[in-house]
């Protein structure tokens, strides 16, 4: 009949190493000053949790943990950090009144729940073992599928509803209405030429190996300078440099056929 075995050395090692790293990640997340560093620490925690799931014969859950949390949710966090400005530091002023008390209460509640769950699990009521549980439906994934589409069908559909809310909410909050229909490539090119824009490549900036090259205007064959050879951002920032009058006289002399 069933024979009780202790976790082997490998499992024990995995538990202590990954468990430790997960805790380190969680602490790092709280302690870090930079938001991006916090996001990285929490990614470390997620990956270690995934390894623990896999070590406990739940490979699908482990992979999903990485794909969804590390891959998608944390990536959303990173994107949000960049959207609002990567290095903006957290404001330490509490905007929601009594949030510390609420956080404390929720933390205590979570602890009670975890301890209760763990206690129920350790009392060993009705355990059949991980391998037997996985083998019951022909595999880990098949077992999950059977549960998802029978006992947990309501939760499954509710997830769908939750996702709709999230998607539509994100859409509504970030949407920018277009006033004009977007121009196609053809219309853009037509606009460019009918308004008398520059048809070809603009002249490249003057390269004198003296400054940062692109901020110096090109000299045209007759010795005059071309303002459009300087990139527009530099012109807007007033970063364009003047060029040496001697250069111009030299060019003019050369074009008029004089030898140096």
């Amino acid at each position, binding site marked *: 009949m069933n024979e009780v075995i202790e976790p082997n050395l490998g499992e024990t090692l995995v538990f202590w190493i990954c468990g430790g790293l997960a805790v380190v990640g969680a602490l790092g997340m709280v302690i870090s000053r930079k938001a991006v560093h916090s996001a990285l620490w929490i990614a470390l925690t997620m990956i270690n949790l995934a390894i623990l799931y896999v070590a406990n014969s739940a490979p699908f859950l482990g992979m999903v943990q990485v794909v969804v949390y590390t891959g998608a949710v944390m990536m959303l966090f990173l994107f949000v950090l960049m959207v609002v400005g990567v*290095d903006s530091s957290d404001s330490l002023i509490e905007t929601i009144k009594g949030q510390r008390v609420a956080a404390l209460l929720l933390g205590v509640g979570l602890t009670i729940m975890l301890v209760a769950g763990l206690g129920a699990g350790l009392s060993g009521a009705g355990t059949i073992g991980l391998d037997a549980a996985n083998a019951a439906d022909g595999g880990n994934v098949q077992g999950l599928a059977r549960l998802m589409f029978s006992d947990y069908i309501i939760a499954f559909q509710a997830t769908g509803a939750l996702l709709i809310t*999230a998607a539509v909410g994100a859409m509504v909050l970030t949407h920018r209405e277009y006033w004009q229909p977007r121009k196609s490539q053809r219309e853009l090119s037509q606009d460019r030429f009918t308004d008398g824009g520059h048809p070809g490549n603009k002249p490249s900036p003057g390269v004198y190996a003296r400054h940062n090259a692109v901020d110096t205007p090109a000299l045209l064959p007759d010795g005059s300078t071309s303002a459009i050879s300087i990139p527009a951002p530099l012109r807007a920032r007033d970063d364009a440099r003047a060029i040496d009058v001697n250069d111009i006289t030299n060019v003019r002399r050369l074009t008029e056929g004089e030898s140096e």
Partner: protein
Amino acid sequence: MESSRFIVLPAPLIHEAPEHYACIGREGFHKRAKSFSYEQGAIDPVNVYTPILILGILAFGFAAFSIIIATLTGPKRYNRAKVDAYECGIEPTPQPMGGGRFPVKYYLTAMMFIIFDIELVFLYPWAVAFDQLELFGFLAMALFLFNLAVPFVYEWRRGGLEWD
């Protein structure tokens, strides 16, 4: 028995070869699958994943070694312009406070990614166990996908999927 967490399978459970498998493949594969898998017992998670760990250590070691060795072998000639951010030769653009802001579009893309990612995660077990789930599984998934199609179509129609 009370404190048990790990229990070895009773023998018959392991030996039960699903008949579906036998119809796949020619004689050679069938024979091999039979002679190796079922007699060996359940998967030992640690052994199956050890090769990944070893490959990971090799790869990490290689990458770390490359980075360290490059600091030793490469020359070091300091130059103020060299350590500036590279912007094709012009003075680096002054960064606004907070490192600059990005189009909120990226946020929307990431949100859509999460939604489709979760959809994928539900689709996979459904696909693997499709034959066992039968019509009910199909209808449940159809309803789920229809639910997710609603925001997708809404977003599409309002121009949320346009990039410019």
